[in-house]
Protein backbone atom coordinates (compact mmCIF):
# COMPACT_ATOMS: atom_id res chain seq x y z
CA UNK A 1 0.00 0.00 0.00
CA UNK A 2 2.69 2.46 1.11
CA UNK A 3 4.83 1.22 -1.73
CA UNK A 4 2.09 1.91 -4.26
CA UNK A 5 1.55 5.38 -2.85
CA UNK A 6 5.24 6.17 -3.18
CA UNK A 7 5.23 4.81 -6.69
CA UNK A 8 2.32 7.10 -7.50
CA UNK A 9 3.86 10.12 -5.91
CA UNK A 10 6.95 9.73 -8.01
CA UNK A 11 5.02 9.01 -11.19
CA UNK A 12 6.16 11.78 -13.53
CA UNK A 13 2.72 12.00 -15.10
CA UNK A 14 1.12 12.88 -11.80
CA UNK A 15 3.67 15.24 -10.28
CA UNK A 16 4.37 17.20 -13.40
CA UNK A 17 2.91 20.72 -13.15
CA UNK A 18 2.14 21.47 -16.75
CA UNK A 19 -0.76 19.35 -17.91
CA UNK A 20 -0.75 17.57 -14.54
CA UNK A 21 -3.45 17.24 -11.84
CA UNK A 22 -2.26 20.22 -9.79
CA UNK A 23 -2.52 22.61 -12.64
CA UNK A 24 -5.91 21.13 -13.51
CA UNK A 25 -7.05 21.63 -9.91
CA UNK A 26 -6.20 25.28 -10.16
CA UNK A 27 -8.15 25.59 -13.41
CA UNK A 28 -11.17 23.89 -11.83
CA UNK A 29 -10.99 26.19 -8.81
CA UNK A 30 -10.62 29.21 -11.07
CA UNK A 31 -13.74 28.27 -13.07
CA UNK A 32 -15.69 27.53 -9.90
CA UNK A 33 -14.74 30.74 -8.09
CA UNK A 34 -15.45 33.03 -11.05
CA UNK A 35 -18.69 31.24 -11.86
CA UNK A 36 -19.84 31.48 -8.25
CA UNK A 37 -18.93 35.16 -8.01
CA UNK A 38 -21.06 35.83 -11.09
CA UNK A 39 -23.80 33.54 -9.78
CA UNK A 40 -24.10 35.41 -6.48
CA UNK A 41 -23.98 38.79 -8.17
CA UNK A 42 -26.70 37.83 -10.68
CA UNK A 43 -28.60 35.14 -8.77
CA UNK A 44 -29.23 37.01 -5.54
CA UNK A 45 -31.02 39.95 -7.20
CA UNK A 46 -32.95 37.45 -9.31
CA UNK A 47 -33.93 35.44 -6.21
CA UNK A 48 -34.98 38.62 -4.40
CA UNK A 49 -36.94 39.73 -7.47
CA UNK A 50 -38.73 36.39 -7.71
CA UNK A 51 -39.62 36.63 -4.01
CA UNK A 52 -40.69 40.28 -4.09
CA UNK A 53 -42.83 40.11 -7.20
CA UNK A 54 -44.63 36.88 -6.37
CA UNK A 55 -47.72 38.46 -4.82
CA UNK A 56 -47.51 41.92 -6.31
CA UNK A 57 -50.67 43.97 -6.54
CA UNK A 58 -49.89 44.86 -10.13
CA UNK A 59 -50.96 42.24 -12.70
CA UNK A 60 -48.11 43.32 -15.01
CA UNK A 61 -45.50 42.59 -12.34
CA UNK A 62 -47.17 39.26 -11.57
CA UNK A 63 -47.03 38.34 -15.27
CA UNK A 64 -43.35 39.29 -15.35
CA UNK A 65 -42.79 37.08 -12.32
CA UNK A 66 -44.46 34.15 -14.06
CA UNK A 67 -42.41 34.60 -17.23
CA UNK A 68 -39.15 34.86 -15.27
CA UNK A 69 -40.13 31.85 -13.19
CA UNK A 70 -40.80 29.89 -16.36
CA UNK A 71 -37.42 30.79 -17.91
CA UNK A 72 -35.70 29.86 -14.64
CA UNK A 73 -37.47 26.50 -14.59
CA UNK A 74 -36.59 25.74 -18.20
CA UNK A 75 -32.91 26.58 -17.65
CA UNK A 76 -32.86 24.53 -14.47
CA UNK A 77 -34.26 21.45 -16.11
CA UNK A 78 -31.89 21.68 -19.09
CA UNK A 79 -29.27 18.90 -18.88
CA UNK A 80 -25.95 20.72 -18.44
CA UNK A 81 -24.19 18.73 -21.11
CA UNK A 82 -26.75 19.77 -23.71
CA UNK A 83 -26.75 23.36 -22.46
CA UNK A 84 -23.02 23.71 -22.91
CA UNK A 85 -23.20 22.42 -26.49
CA UNK A 86 -26.22 24.54 -27.31
CA UNK A 87 -24.35 27.61 -26.05
CA UNK A 88 -21.25 27.10 -28.19
CA UNK A 89 -22.25 29.74 -30.79
CA UNK A 90 -22.92 32.29 -28.02
CA UNK A 91 -19.78 31.57 -26.03
CA UNK A 92 -17.56 31.72 -29.08
CA UNK A 93 -19.17 35.03 -30.00
CA UNK A 94 -18.39 36.45 -26.56
CA UNK A 95 -14.98 34.95 -25.76
CA UNK A 96 -13.74 34.42 -29.29
CA UNK A 97 -13.41 30.66 -28.85
CA UNK A 98 -15.67 27.75 -28.14
CA UNK A 99 -13.38 25.88 -25.74
CA UNK A 100 -11.32 26.63 -22.67
CA UNK A 101 -12.26 27.67 -19.15
CA UNK A 102 -13.50 31.15 -20.06
CA UNK A 103 -15.94 29.76 -22.60
CA UNK A 104 -17.10 27.12 -20.14
CA UNK A 105 -17.73 29.70 -17.44
CA UNK A 106 -20.45 31.33 -19.50
CA UNK A 107 -22.33 28.06 -19.72
CA UNK A 108 -21.61 27.33 -16.06
CA UNK A 109 -23.00 30.70 -15.00
CA UNK A 110 -26.10 30.33 -17.13
CA UNK A 111 -26.74 26.97 -15.50
CA UNK A 112 -25.91 28.07 -11.95
CA UNK A 113 -27.80 31.38 -11.78
CA UNK A 114 -31.34 29.95 -12.07
CA UNK A 115 -30.41 27.07 -9.77
CA UNK A 116 -29.14 29.47 -7.11
CA UNK A 117 -31.94 31.99 -7.61
CA UNK A 118 -34.59 29.39 -6.79
CA UNK A 119 -32.71 28.32 -3.68
CA UNK A 120 -32.32 31.97 -2.61
CA UNK A 121 -36.03 32.53 -3.15
CA UNK A 122 -36.82 29.59 -0.86
CA UNK A 123 -34.42 30.93 1.78
CA UNK A 124 -36.24 34.28 1.74
CA UNK A 125 -39.62 32.59 2.03
CA UNK A 126 -38.62 31.07 5.34
CA UNK A 127 -38.51 34.47 7.05
CA UNK A 128 -41.67 34.86 9.17
CA UNK A 129 -44.03 37.48 7.70
CA UNK A 130 -44.36 39.13 11.13
CA UNK A 131 -40.72 40.21 11.15
CA UNK A 132 -41.03 41.89 7.78
CA UNK A 133 -44.29 43.53 8.81
CA UNK A 134 -42.72 44.81 12.03
CA UNK A 135 -40.02 46.60 10.09
CA UNK A 136 -42.44 47.92 7.49
CA UNK A 137 -44.42 49.42 10.36
CA UNK A 138 -41.31 51.32 11.43
CA UNK A 139 -41.65 53.17 8.14
CA UNK A 140 -39.08 51.17 6.18
CA UNK A 141 -39.01 51.36 2.40
CA UNK A 142 -38.98 48.25 0.25
CA UNK A 143 -35.26 48.60 -0.31
CA UNK A 144 -34.62 49.01 3.42
CA UNK A 145 -36.61 45.84 4.07
CA UNK A 146 -34.48 43.95 1.53
CA UNK A 147 -31.19 45.25 2.91
CA UNK A 148 -32.01 45.19 6.60
CA UNK A 149 -34.40 42.27 6.97
CA UNK A 150 -34.46 39.85 4.04
CA UNK A 151 -30.72 39.46 3.45
CA UNK A 152 -29.45 39.44 7.05
CA UNK A 153 -32.28 37.25 8.38
CA UNK A 154 -31.89 34.73 5.56
CA UNK A 155 -28.07 34.86 5.55
CA UNK A 156 -27.42 31.44 7.15
CA UNK A 157 -29.71 29.83 4.57
CA UNK A 158 -28.30 31.90 1.71
CA UNK A 159 -24.79 30.73 2.58
CA UNK A 160 -26.07 27.15 2.62
CA UNK A 161 -27.54 27.68 -0.85
CA UNK A 162 -24.27 29.14 -2.13
CA UNK A 163 -22.49 26.05 -0.78
CA UNK A 164 -24.93 23.71 -2.52
CA UNK A 165 -24.64 25.65 -5.79
CA UNK A 166 -20.83 25.66 -5.56
CA UNK A 167 -20.81 21.88 -5.24
CA UNK A 168 -23.14 21.56 -8.21
CA UNK A 169 -20.87 23.88 -10.21
CA UNK A 170 -17.82 21.75 -9.37
CA UNK A 171 -19.71 18.79 -10.79
CA UNK A 172 -20.57 20.80 -13.90
CA UNK A 173 -16.92 21.84 -14.43
CA UNK A 174 -16.01 18.18 -14.56
CA UNK A 175 -18.69 17.63 -17.18
CA UNK A 176 -17.51 20.69 -19.09
CA UNK A 177 -14.10 19.05 -19.19
CA UNK A 178 -15.30 16.58 -21.76
CA UNK A 179 -15.79 19.49 -24.16
CA UNK A 180 -12.31 20.86 -23.57
CA UNK A 181 -13.05 23.30 -20.77
CA UNK A 182 -9.84 22.30 -19.04
CA UNK A 183 -9.49 21.38 -15.40
CA UNK A 184 -9.80 18.09 -13.58
CA UNK A 185 -12.69 16.86 -15.67
CA UNK A 186 -10.83 17.20 -18.92
CA UNK A 187 -7.75 15.60 -17.43
CA UNK A 188 -9.74 12.58 -16.35
CA UNK A 189 -11.44 12.37 -19.72
CA UNK A 190 -8.51 12.96 -22.07
CA UNK A 191 -5.74 11.16 -20.24
CA UNK A 192 -7.64 8.82 -18.02
CA UNK A 193 -10.48 7.65 -20.20
CA UNK A 194 -9.22 8.21 -23.74
CA UNK A 195 -5.54 7.81 -22.81
CA UNK A 196 -5.97 4.71 -20.61
CA UNK A 197 -4.19 6.24 -17.61
CA UNK A 198 -6.26 4.77 -14.79
CA UNK A 199 -4.12 6.48 -12.13
CA UNK A 200 -5.18 9.82 -13.58
CA UNK A 201 -8.86 9.01 -13.12
CA UNK A 202 -8.28 7.95 -9.51
CA UNK A 203 -6.26 11.05 -8.70
CA UNK A 204 -8.72 13.48 -10.28
CA UNK A 205 -11.67 11.85 -8.54
CA UNK A 206 -9.90 12.02 -5.19
CA UNK A 207 -9.06 15.66 -5.78
CA UNK A 208 -12.66 16.49 -6.76
CA UNK A 209 -14.00 14.75 -3.67
CA UNK A 210 -11.52 16.61 -1.48
CA UNK A 211 -12.56 19.94 -2.98
CA UNK A 212 -16.25 19.19 -2.45
CA UNK A 213 -15.71 18.14 1.16
CA UNK A 214 -13.68 21.27 1.81
CA UNK A 215 -16.33 23.53 0.25
CA UNK A 216 -19.05 21.90 2.34
CA UNK A 217 -16.99 22.29 5.48
CA UNK A 218 -16.23 25.96 4.90
CA UNK A 219 -19.86 26.64 3.92
CA UNK A 220 -21.20 25.00 7.08
CA UNK A 221 -18.75 26.92 9.24
CA UNK A 222 -19.65 30.25 7.68
CA UNK A 223 -23.36 29.56 7.86
CA UNK A 224 -23.11 28.70 11.52
CA UNK A 225 -20.99 31.74 12.27
CA UNK A 226 -23.69 34.13 11.02
CA UNK A 227 -26.59 32.18 12.53
CA UNK A 228 -27.84 33.78 15.74
CA UNK A 229 -31.11 31.88 15.92
CA UNK A 230 -31.79 29.56 18.83
CA UNK A 231 -30.61 26.06 18.09
CA UNK A 232 -33.46 23.64 18.35
CA UNK A 233 -32.33 20.15 19.14
Amino acid at each position, binding site marked *: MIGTLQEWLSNPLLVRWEGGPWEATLVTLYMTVVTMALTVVLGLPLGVALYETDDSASPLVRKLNQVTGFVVNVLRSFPFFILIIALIPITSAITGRSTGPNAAMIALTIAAVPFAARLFELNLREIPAGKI*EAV*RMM*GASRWQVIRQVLIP*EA*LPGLIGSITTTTIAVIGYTAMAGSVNAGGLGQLAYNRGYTGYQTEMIVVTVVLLIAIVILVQLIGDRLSRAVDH*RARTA
Partner: protein
Amino acid sequence: MITLDGLSKVFPAPGGGDPVVALDGIDLHLEPGRVHGIVGRSGAGKSTLIRCLTGLEKPSTGRVEVDGTDVAALDGAALRAARRNIGMVFQHANLLDSRTAAQNIAHPLEIAGVPRAQRQQRVAELVELVGLTGREDNYPAQLSGGQIQRVGIARGLAAEPKVLLCDEPTSALDGSTTRQILGLIADLRERLGITVVIITHEMGVVREVCDTVTLLQDGTITQSGDLLDVAADPHGPLSAELIPLPPAPTGIEALVVNCDYGNSERFRTTDDLIRLAETYEAEATLVAGTIETIGGCQVGRVQLALRNRSGQPISREGLTAFLTELEAAGVVATEVTA
Protein backbone atom coordinates in the same frame (compact mmCIF):
# COMPACT_ATOMS: atom_id res chain seq x y z
CA MET B 1 -55.43 61.05 19.39
CA ILE B 2 -57.06 58.28 17.39
CA THR B 3 -60.38 58.71 15.65
CA LEU B 4 -62.10 56.04 13.60
CA ASP B 5 -65.02 57.19 11.57
CA GLY B 6 -67.27 54.58 9.97
CA LEU B 7 -64.31 52.26 9.47
CA SER B 8 -65.11 49.10 7.50
CA LYS B 9 -62.86 46.44 6.09
CA VAL B 10 -64.08 43.73 3.76
CA PHE B 11 -61.75 40.98 2.57
CA PRO B 12 -62.61 39.28 -0.70
CA ALA B 13 -63.18 35.59 -0.10
CA PRO B 14 -60.17 33.56 -1.19
CA GLY B 15 -62.23 30.85 -2.88
CA GLY B 16 -64.78 33.14 -4.48
CA GLY B 17 -67.39 32.62 -1.76
CA ASP B 18 -68.88 35.30 0.48
CA PRO B 19 -66.49 38.15 1.30
CA VAL B 20 -65.35 38.40 4.93
CA VAL B 21 -66.51 41.53 6.74
CA ALA B 22 -63.72 41.94 9.29
CA LEU B 23 -64.74 45.44 10.44
CA ASP B 24 -68.21 46.85 10.01
CA GLY B 25 -68.71 50.57 10.59
CA ILE B 26 -66.43 51.25 13.55
CA ASP B 27 -66.76 54.67 15.22
CA LEU B 28 -64.27 55.15 18.01
CA HIS B 29 -62.44 58.00 19.64
CA LEU B 30 -59.39 57.32 21.80
CA GLU B 31 -58.14 60.12 24.03
CA PRO B 32 -54.45 61.00 24.25
CA GLY B 33 -52.32 59.94 27.21
CA ARG B 34 -54.45 56.99 28.23
CA VAL B 35 -54.26 53.23 27.96
CA HIS B 36 -57.01 51.86 25.77
CA GLY B 37 -57.93 48.19 25.75
CA ILE B 38 -59.56 46.49 22.79
CA VAL B 39 -60.97 43.08 23.55
CA GLY B 40 -62.92 40.52 21.62
CA ARG B 41 -63.03 36.92 20.65
CA SER B 42 -60.69 35.40 18.11
CA GLY B 43 -61.69 36.61 14.65
CA ALA B 44 -63.52 39.67 15.99
CA GLY B 45 -61.32 41.97 13.92
CA LYS B 46 -58.87 43.26 16.53
CA SER B 47 -55.73 42.73 14.48
CA THR B 48 -57.41 44.09 11.37
CA LEU B 49 -58.29 47.22 13.34
CA ILE B 50 -54.70 47.75 14.46
CA ARG B 51 -53.41 47.08 10.93
CA CYS B 52 -55.74 49.79 9.64
CA LEU B 53 -54.23 52.19 12.18
CA THR B 54 -50.75 51.62 10.73
CA GLY B 55 -51.86 51.80 7.12
CA LEU B 56 -50.80 48.21 6.59
CA GLU B 57 -54.38 47.51 5.63
CA LYS B 58 -56.42 50.00 3.64
CA PRO B 59 -59.96 50.46 4.95
CA SER B 60 -62.73 49.56 2.53
CA THR B 61 -64.62 52.63 3.70
CA GLY B 62 -64.29 55.16 6.49
CA ARG B 63 -61.60 57.35 7.99
CA VAL B 64 -58.66 56.48 10.21
CA GLU B 65 -57.12 59.46 11.91
CA VAL B 66 -54.00 59.13 14.06
CA ASP B 67 -52.58 62.26 15.64
CA GLY B 68 -54.38 64.49 13.16
CA THR B 69 -53.33 62.65 9.98
CA ASP B 70 -55.66 60.60 7.85
CA VAL B 71 -53.61 57.41 7.64
CA ALA B 72 -55.89 55.78 5.10
CA ALA B 73 -55.31 58.56 2.58
CA LEU B 74 -51.51 58.33 2.73
CA ASP B 75 -49.20 56.51 0.36
CA GLY B 76 -45.53 55.92 -0.20
CA ALA B 77 -43.14 58.26 1.58
CA ALA B 78 -45.91 60.12 3.44
CA LEU B 79 -47.26 56.86 4.85
CA ARG B 80 -43.79 55.75 5.89
CA ALA B 81 -43.26 59.07 7.65
CA ALA B 82 -46.61 58.73 9.44
CA ARG B 83 -45.71 55.22 10.59
CA ARG B 84 -42.68 56.57 12.40
CA ASN B 85 -45.14 58.34 14.73
CA ILE B 86 -46.61 55.00 15.71
CA GLY B 87 -44.81 52.41 17.80
CA MET B 88 -45.85 48.82 17.59
CA VAL B 89 -45.43 45.87 19.96
CA PHE B 90 -46.29 42.33 18.88
CA GLN B 91 -47.30 39.14 20.64
CA HIS B 92 -44.08 37.37 19.68
CA ALA B 93 -42.09 40.62 19.59
CA ASN B 94 -40.96 39.92 15.99
CA LEU B 95 -37.39 40.89 16.72
CA LEU B 96 -34.78 40.22 14.05
CA ASP B 97 -32.60 37.24 14.99
CA SER B 98 -29.68 38.74 13.12
CA ARG B 99 -29.55 41.77 15.41
CA THR B 100 -28.61 42.11 19.07
CA ALA B 101 -31.07 43.62 21.54
CA ALA B 102 -29.43 47.03 21.14
CA GLN B 103 -29.43 46.78 17.33
CA ASN B 104 -33.10 45.79 17.33
CA ILE B 105 -33.95 48.76 19.53
CA ALA B 106 -31.94 51.06 17.26
CA HIS B 107 -33.68 49.79 14.11
CA PRO B 108 -36.52 52.35 13.89
CA LEU B 109 -33.94 55.12 14.38
CA GLU B 110 -31.77 53.67 11.64
CA ILE B 111 -34.75 53.66 9.30
CA ALA B 112 -35.54 57.24 10.23
CA GLY B 113 -31.96 58.22 9.41
CA VAL B 114 -30.90 59.29 12.91
CA PRO B 115 -27.08 59.68 13.11
CA ARG B 116 -25.16 56.90 14.82
CA ALA B 117 -24.01 58.81 17.91
CA GLN B 118 -27.52 60.01 18.65
CA ARG B 119 -28.84 56.50 18.06
CA GLN B 120 -26.47 54.99 20.59
CA GLN B 121 -27.40 57.52 23.21
CA ARG B 122 -31.11 56.92 22.70
CA VAL B 123 -30.66 53.14 22.83
CA ALA B 124 -28.78 53.45 26.11
CA GLU B 125 -31.69 55.46 27.54
CA LEU B 126 -34.24 52.92 26.32
CA VAL B 127 -32.29 49.93 27.63
CA GLU B 128 -32.32 51.58 31.01
CA LEU B 129 -35.99 52.55 30.72
CA VAL B 130 -37.18 48.99 30.09
CA GLY B 131 -34.74 47.45 32.55
CA LEU B 132 -32.45 45.55 30.20
CA THR B 133 -29.12 46.91 31.36
CA GLY B 134 -26.37 44.37 30.75
CA ARG B 135 -28.30 42.42 28.12
CA GLU B 136 -28.06 44.87 25.23
CA ASP B 137 -25.46 42.85 23.34
CA ASN B 138 -27.38 39.58 23.54
CA TYR B 139 -29.15 38.16 20.52
CA PRO B 140 -32.89 37.39 20.93
CA ALA B 141 -32.10 33.67 21.12
CA GLN B 142 -30.17 34.39 24.31
CA LEU B 143 -33.03 36.24 26.03
CA SER B 144 -36.09 35.05 27.96
CA GLY B 145 -39.63 35.69 26.71
CA GLY B 146 -40.06 38.60 29.12
CA GLN B 147 -36.74 40.16 28.12
CA ILE B 148 -37.60 39.74 24.45
CA GLN B 149 -40.85 41.61 25.00
CA ARG B 150 -38.95 44.37 26.83
CA VAL B 151 -36.75 44.72 23.76
CA GLY B 152 -39.92 44.79 21.65
CA ILE B 153 -41.36 47.60 23.77
CA ALA B 154 -38.10 49.56 23.74
CA ARG B 155 -38.01 49.20 19.95
CA GLY B 156 -41.62 50.37 19.74
CA LEU B 157 -40.70 53.48 21.75
CA ALA B 158 -37.37 54.21 20.07
CA ALA B 159 -38.55 56.78 17.56
CA GLU B 160 -40.51 58.61 20.30
CA PRO B 161 -43.92 57.83 18.84
CA LYS B 162 -47.04 59.51 20.14
CA VAL B 163 -48.96 56.25 20.00
CA LEU B 164 -47.90 52.77 21.06
CA LEU B 165 -49.98 49.96 19.57
CA CYS B 166 -49.69 46.58 21.28
CA ASP B 167 -51.18 43.47 19.68
CA GLU B 168 -51.46 40.81 22.39
CA PRO B 169 -48.26 41.97 24.09
CA THR B 170 -48.48 39.52 26.98
CA SER B 171 -50.28 36.53 25.48
CA ALA B 172 -47.06 34.55 25.11
CA LEU B 173 -45.87 35.28 28.65
CA ASP B 174 -46.48 33.65 32.02
CA GLY B 175 -48.41 35.33 34.81
CA SER B 176 -45.64 37.09 36.68
CA THR B 177 -43.89 38.22 33.48
CA THR B 178 -47.24 39.53 32.23
CA ARG B 179 -47.54 41.62 35.38
CA GLN B 180 -44.02 42.99 34.93
CA ILE B 181 -44.65 43.94 31.32
CA LEU B 182 -47.97 45.58 32.18
CA GLY B 183 -46.27 47.44 35.01
CA LEU B 184 -43.73 48.67 32.49
CA ILE B 185 -46.45 49.85 30.10
CA ALA B 186 -48.30 51.68 32.88
CA ASP B 187 -45.05 53.26 34.01
CA LEU B 188 -44.21 54.41 30.48
CA ARG B 189 -47.60 56.01 30.07
CA GLU B 190 -47.03 57.81 33.36
CA ARG B 191 -43.53 58.99 32.45
CA LEU B 192 -43.87 59.67 28.73
CA GLY B 193 -47.52 60.62 28.49
CA ILE B 194 -47.83 58.30 25.51
CA THR B 195 -51.16 57.01 24.20
CA VAL B 196 -51.31 53.22 24.39
CA VAL B 197 -53.68 50.84 22.61
CA ILE B 198 -53.58 47.26 23.88
CA ILE B 199 -55.30 44.45 22.05
CA THR B 200 -55.88 41.47 24.25
CA HIS B 201 -58.16 38.61 25.04
CA GLU B 202 -57.07 38.56 28.69
CA MET B 203 -59.44 40.46 30.99
CA GLY B 204 -56.69 40.57 33.60
CA VAL B 205 -54.69 42.83 31.29
CA VAL B 206 -57.65 45.18 30.94
CA ARG B 207 -58.26 45.29 34.70
CA GLU B 208 -54.61 45.90 35.41
CA VAL B 209 -53.62 48.71 33.02
CA CYS B 210 -56.44 49.97 30.88
CA ASP B 211 -58.28 53.26 31.39
CA THR B 212 -60.87 52.50 28.74
CA VAL B 213 -62.08 49.30 27.16
CA THR B 214 -63.78 48.55 23.86
CA LEU B 215 -65.44 45.26 23.05
CA LEU B 216 -65.32 44.16 19.46
CA GLN B 217 -67.72 41.48 18.28
CA ASP B 218 -67.93 40.30 14.69
CA GLY B 219 -66.43 43.54 13.45
CA THR B 220 -68.66 45.91 15.40
CA ILE B 221 -68.30 47.66 18.74
CA THR B 222 -70.71 46.27 21.28
CA GLN B 223 -69.47 48.21 24.28
CA SER B 224 -66.97 50.96 24.84
CA GLY B 225 -66.14 53.35 27.64
CA ASP B 226 -64.11 54.07 30.74
CA LEU B 227 -63.14 50.91 32.55
CA LEU B 228 -65.06 51.86 35.69
CA ASP B 229 -68.27 52.63 33.82
CA VAL B 230 -68.07 49.46 31.78
CA ALA B 231 -67.25 47.29 34.78
CA ALA B 232 -69.97 48.86 36.85
CA ASP B 233 -72.68 48.42 34.25
CA PRO B 234 -74.04 45.02 35.19
CA HIS B 235 -76.18 44.81 32.06
CA GLY B 236 -73.29 45.33 29.67
CA PRO B 237 -71.57 42.34 28.08
CA LEU B 238 -68.17 43.17 29.56
CA SER B 239 -68.95 43.47 33.24
CA ALA B 240 -69.42 39.75 33.72
CA GLU B 241 -66.00 39.18 32.20
CA LEU B 242 -64.26 41.97 34.08
CA ILE B 243 -65.97 41.17 37.37
CA PRO B 244 -66.72 37.47 37.01
CA LEU B 245 -69.81 36.04 38.65
CA PRO B 246 -68.77 33.79 41.51
CA PRO B 247 -70.18 30.25 41.50
CA ALA B 248 -73.36 29.97 43.54
CA PRO B 249 -72.54 28.72 47.03
CA THR B 250 -74.12 25.44 48.00
CA GLY B 251 -75.22 23.98 51.30
CA ILE B 252 -76.04 27.29 52.96
CA GLU B 253 -79.07 27.47 55.20
CA ALA B 254 -80.03 30.99 54.22
CA LEU B 255 -81.37 33.12 51.44
CA VAL B 256 -78.58 34.14 49.14
CA VAL B 257 -78.70 37.30 47.09
CA ASN B 258 -76.44 38.46 44.32
CA CYS B 259 -75.60 42.16 44.26
CA ASP B 260 -73.72 44.06 41.55
CA TYR B 261 -72.65 47.44 42.79
CA GLY B 262 -70.31 50.11 41.54
CA ASN B 263 -72.91 52.08 39.68
CA SER B 264 -74.62 53.29 42.82
CA GLU B 265 -74.09 56.60 44.55
CA ARG B 266 -75.37 55.28 47.83
CA PHE B 267 -73.81 51.83 48.03
CA ARG B 268 -70.09 52.05 47.38
CA THR B 269 -68.73 49.08 49.30
CA THR B 270 -69.85 45.65 50.43
CA ASP B 271 -70.02 47.02 53.96
CA ASP B 272 -72.68 49.47 52.83
CA LEU B 273 -74.80 46.53 51.69
CA ILE B 274 -74.30 44.67 54.95
CA ARG B 275 -75.29 47.80 56.90
CA LEU B 276 -78.49 48.10 54.88
CA ALA B 277 -79.35 44.48 55.64
CA GLU B 278 -79.19 45.30 59.34
CA THR B 279 -82.01 47.79 58.96
CA TYR B 280 -84.09 44.82 57.75
CA GLU B 281 -83.26 42.90 60.89
CA ALA B 282 -80.97 40.60 58.89
CA GLU B 283 -77.39 39.55 59.28
CA ALA B 284 -75.62 39.52 55.96
CA THR B 285 -72.52 37.39 55.49
CA LEU B 286 -70.34 37.66 52.42
CA VAL B 287 -70.20 34.14 50.97
CA ALA B 288 -68.67 34.70 47.57
CA GLY B 289 -67.70 37.61 45.36
CA THR B 290 -65.36 39.46 43.10
CA ILE B 291 -64.36 42.96 44.10
CA GLU B 292 -62.13 45.24 42.10
CA THR B 293 -60.96 48.75 42.86
CA ILE B 294 -60.79 50.72 39.62
CA GLY B 295 -59.60 54.29 39.72
CA GLY B 296 -60.25 54.47 43.46
CA CYS B 297 -63.82 53.17 43.16
CA GLN B 298 -65.01 49.77 44.20
CA VAL B 299 -66.89 47.59 41.77
CA GLY B 300 -68.20 44.35 43.11
CA ARG B 301 -70.28 41.35 42.31
CA VAL B 302 -70.97 39.73 45.65
CA GLN B 303 -73.24 37.13 47.13
CA LEU B 304 -74.63 37.67 50.60
CA ALA B 305 -76.29 35.10 52.82
CA LEU B 306 -79.13 36.66 54.81
CA ARG B 307 -80.28 35.26 58.13
CA ASN B 308 -82.34 36.72 60.92
CA ARG B 309 -81.19 37.11 64.52
CA SER B 310 -82.04 33.53 65.38
CA GLY B 311 -80.02 32.16 62.44
CA GLN B 312 -83.00 31.34 60.24
CA PRO B 313 -83.45 32.56 56.68
CA ILE B 314 -85.22 35.90 56.62
CA SER B 315 -88.78 36.32 55.56
CA ARG B 316 -89.92 36.69 51.94
CA GLU B 317 -91.33 40.16 52.63
CA GLY B 318 -88.11 41.35 54.19
CA LEU B 319 -86.15 40.02 51.24
CA THR B 320 -88.35 41.69 48.66
CA ALA B 321 -88.13 45.03 50.45
CA PHE B 322 -84.37 44.72 50.75
CA LEU B 323 -83.94 43.95 47.06
CA THR B 324 -86.26 46.77 46.06
CA GLU B 325 -84.34 49.31 48.07
CA LEU B 326 -81.07 48.18 46.54
CA GLU B 327 -82.49 48.33 43.02
CA ALA B 328 -83.80 51.83 43.67
CA ALA B 329 -80.26 52.93 44.55
CA GLY B 330 -78.73 51.47 41.42
CA VAL B 331 -77.54 48.09 42.67
CA VAL B 332 -78.57 45.10 40.59
CA ALA B 333 -79.80 42.65 43.21
CA THR B 334 -81.36 39.25 42.64
CA GLU B 335 -82.08 36.21 44.72
CA VAL B 336 -79.83 33.27 43.94
CA THR B 337 -81.80 30.10 43.51
CA ALA B 338 -79.60 27.13 44.18
